[in-house]
Structures are given as C-alpha cells and as structure tokens.
C-alpha cells in the first residue's frame, strides 16, 4: 500500500541493496509522492490523455520508483533491479518504462518539457494535467524561470509544479549558496497561483494539489516546505545524506527509525 511509511521503507531497502545515495532527497519528497500517486493521479496514468508526471529532481528517482511500485504501476521485477547492470531503473529516471515520461538528471529541464506537454493539451483541448516535482535548488537554474514565465503567459492552468523546499543542496544550505527566500512570492511574481504547504502533511498536500481542479487559467505552484531526510531521524537535515550510501548499521538504524525492524 502506498503510505508514507511504506514508501520510505522501499526507498531505504533499494538504496541499501544498491549501496547508492541520494537518500535524503528521496525521503524529502516521499509524502508528496504518496499524495500525488494515491490521491491525485491514481487511475489517470494510461492512455493518450493520461496525466503526465515529471520528476525534474531526477536524483530523487527512488521516491518515484517506490511510489509507482506501491501503486501497482511498476513491477517488483523491475524495482529489484534498481541500479543493476542491464536493469531499467538507474539513479536518475530514464524514459522507456511506464510511469517515466521524461528522462531527467540534469536539473532545470523538467518544467520546460512539462510546459510543452501542457501546451499540447491546450492546443488540442484535452483535459490532462501535468505535474512536475522539482527541487528548491532547481530554482537556481535560469531555465526554470524561462519555463515559469512562459507557462503563466500561456495560461497553462493544468500545469502544476511542486517545489520541494527542503533548504538543502549538494554543497550546503540553500540560504548559504543562493538564497531563495520567499519562494511563493517568487512564483507569484511570474504569474503563478502559489501556495505554501507543509510538505509532510498529506491532507494539506492533497488540498493544495487539488487546486488544479479549480479550472483556473494560472498554473499552480505548490511550495512544499519539507525536511531533508524526513522520516529517518539521523538523516534529517544532514548534508552527508545527499550523496552517502548506508552501511549495514546505518540501514538497521534507519529501518528502526521508521518504527519497524529489518
């Protein structure tokens, strides 16, 4: 079942098995992915007029794979080959499997692609929605704002971006690297409907994401205030869990932190 605890368990299991990192970034968006896949796009991910989901912060792919797996959109066989030679699931998502619309890993490219998907829907008067999950540090990328201004100009009201505002990037705190300040105000300034939300409050996240159903003309930015590494106490807000992989002891402790045993 797709729950906040289960998605984190899958993230930890696969990261441990593959001895790979990017764990904190995946944990950060775990609740966002639960709400997105369980409550918003469930049952709408197939066919030409399907909802599109783009994980622009591709390094958090484990959260995407876990959400797809737990919602029945990805087979266990594929999941278990995460980062294995010849497997389909790498550290960053690659197209060619159901549920991955667009290959990411280079930050700041997802929103432009998603704007193209949303524009296509607008041109042919289709109803599909396009969701993008991006990182706060992706707001450093100029191209993010090229796409943001374009989407507002074109009234792409069925386009939604969820910004994972965890204040952490590869080499430090975002406030020490490039201050982003009031992100809601920044998205509002370029014409978006923007809302602040606790990125770990699933009910609040659902309310925010459902604003897409209001049929407005503005694209929607959900500024999800999150904690890097959320759910695993010793990883929370710790920079090393951007890249580090877990030792046996780390894994045992992490699973215990979720309230279960390995």
């Amino acid at each position, binding site marked *: 079942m797709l729950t906040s605890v289960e998605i984190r368990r899958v993230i930890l299991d696969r990261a441990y098995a593959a001895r790979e990192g990017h764990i904190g970034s995946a944990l950060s968006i775990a609740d966002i992915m639960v709400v997105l896949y369980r409550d918003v796009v469930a049952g709408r991910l197939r066919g*030409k007029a399907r909802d599109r989901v783009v994980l622009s912060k591709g390094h958090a792919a484990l959260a995407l794979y876990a959400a797809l797996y737990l919602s029945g959109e990805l087979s266990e066989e594929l999941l278990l080959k995460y980062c294995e030679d010849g497997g389909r699931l790498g550290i960053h998502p690659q*197209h060619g499997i159901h549920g991955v*619309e*667009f*290959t*990411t*890993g*280079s930050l700041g*490219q997802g*929103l*432009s*692609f*998603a*704007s*193209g*998907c*949303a*524009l*296509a*829907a607008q*041109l042919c008067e289709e109803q599909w929605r396009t969701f993008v999950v991006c990182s706060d540090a992706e707001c450093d990328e*100029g*191209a993010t704002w*090229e*796409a943001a*201004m*374009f989407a507002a*100009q*074109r009234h792409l009201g069925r386009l939604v971006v969820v910004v994972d505002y965890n204040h952490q990037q590869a080499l430090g705190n975002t406030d020490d690297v490039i201050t982003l300040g009031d992100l809601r105000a920044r998205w509002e300034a370029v014409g978006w409907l923007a809302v602040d939300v606790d990125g770990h409050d699933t009910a609040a996240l659902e309310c925010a994401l459902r604003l897409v159903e209001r049929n407005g003309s503005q694209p929607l930015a959900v500024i999800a205030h999150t904690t890097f590494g959320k759910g695993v106490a010793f990883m929370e807000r710790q920079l090393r869990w951007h890249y580090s992989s877990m030792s046996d002891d780390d894994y045992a402790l992490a699973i215990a932190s979720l309230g279960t045993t390995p």
Partner: protein
Amino acid sequence: MRAAFVSALHHLMDEDERVVLLTADLGFHVLEPLIDSHPQRVINLGVAEQNMAGVATGLAHSGRIPFIYSIATFASLRGYEFIRNGAIVHGLPVRVVGIGGGFEYGAAGISHYALEDLGLMRIQPGMTVVAPADGAQAAAALRATWELPGPVYYRVGKNDGAVLPELEARFRVGHVEVLRRGGDALLLATGAIATEAWRACSQLEAVGVSCSLAVVACLAPTPRDEIASLLDSVPLAVTVETHYVDGGLGSLTAEVIAEEGVHCRLVRAGVDSVPDRYSGSQAYMERRFRLDAASLVKRVLDAR
C-alpha cells in the same frame, strides 16, 4: 534560402495540424504570414531558447511536430543540452531551425556566426543534419524530412537571392548531389557557400583543371559510401564549409578517408580561428578565411 524554407513550412502548416512553430522572438519580416494564417500554432516564447527546446520536446512527446526557430548560434548552442536530453535521448520529432550559418550575419559579429552547429548536431546519434545550398534545395529538404520520426537540424541560409546552378532542387536524405564530374580534384561543399565552390569549379575548368563537385546537404545520416566512392576517383579533395575546420564536413570527410582506407589527399577549407576583434561583411569574412571562389581556386592549384 530562408524565404523558400519558410514558405515551404507555411504550406506544411496549412496541410498538417500537428506542425507547430516556436520562435525565440526572432523572425521579424519573415514569420508574419505564418502568424497571420496560424495564430494558434505560431508561438513566440520570448528570448528563451532553452525553454523553447524543452517545450518543443513536450509538444513532440504529445504528438506534435514542433519547429524551433532562431539564429543558428542561438538555436543550436543555447539550448544544446535541452536538445540532447530531450529530442535526441527520447527520439522525438523536434525540428531545430538555425538561420544564417557561417558569416551570413556579417557585421553582426561573432555572437551571430554559427561555426560549430553542424559538428555539434552531427555527433548526436539519430539527429538528421541538413545544410542546403540554396532556396530550392532548402524547400525540397524540408519536404523530404519534416515527417521523419526523429529530430532534424536545419542550417538555413539567410540570403534569399542565391541560386546554385545545376542543383535544381535536388535533395535526398543520406545522399550527396553530384553537380560536376572531373578527375583532377573533388570539391565537397555544404550550405550556402557551395555557390562559391561551384564558381571555383568553373574557374578551374577554364584553366584546364577538371573537378568533381558534390553538394553534401545531408551530413547525417552520413552519405559515407557515396563520399568514399567520389574520393576514390581523385587524388585531391577540398571540403568547403563556413564552419570551423574541426567537426563539420572536413572532419566527416577525413573520417571517411581514414575508415574506408581511401588514398586521397584532403584540404579542409573552413574557419581556422575565432573570428572576433574585427568587423566585416559576409563577403569580407569569407575572403579573409579563404572561402571565396578565387581563394578556393588557389587552394586547389597550390595543393596539386
């Protein structure tokens, strides 16, 4: 060439709803008829070439055939990684239209000189790379490629007047078009500068040097066998392109010579340094880099 290409594109937009034209705020006095006819499908995204490439990828992913239009440098360079991670990686029918190769923007200077676009585009697997020699060939090339399943790069000359005699609107994907046959040397030319190669060929003929002339308007898929066969019958080949000498047609020809084991000397006529810190017209810059007909004649004679 640009007018012929845009006119052919206009017809495509009339015929097929899938075709969408995106511009990064360029095309003044060129795109207006298309905007008038298809206001919904000609979209100005502002000065934002990266986003243009990304949006085009999303459109193509959803069944459209997007053309992205800008000056060749901006179209090819600014959004290159978006083109690579988007249209190339996903094998989508994005059409990148780069206006004005080489020195066609004259006194506008280095920022407007596309000198590496062909090289950058041809190294990407699955990218069809087209550099027509004149307007009629540009229109024919568009008609031959617009519906290909993968991405296409078009280097479209800015000047509308030039006509390459004997070419007669011929274009085939993956082939060269041979205009002359002679045994003393082979001139291989791509893009609008092919007209200078044609003039050089005529002048050489007048002094008793008989040259073959082939227009390589499709650099990828590479017409490898045809180029090898042409090289095989001459002692000397000169490649002619308004492009850095590395990466474009000259490099492509060197690859064919090396890999096919052809015994033929190669002179790569192109741009061999960064053309900045001085200004000049297209004609001046082409002379300065020895790409005009008179210089090409001299290079053939010197190399024999």
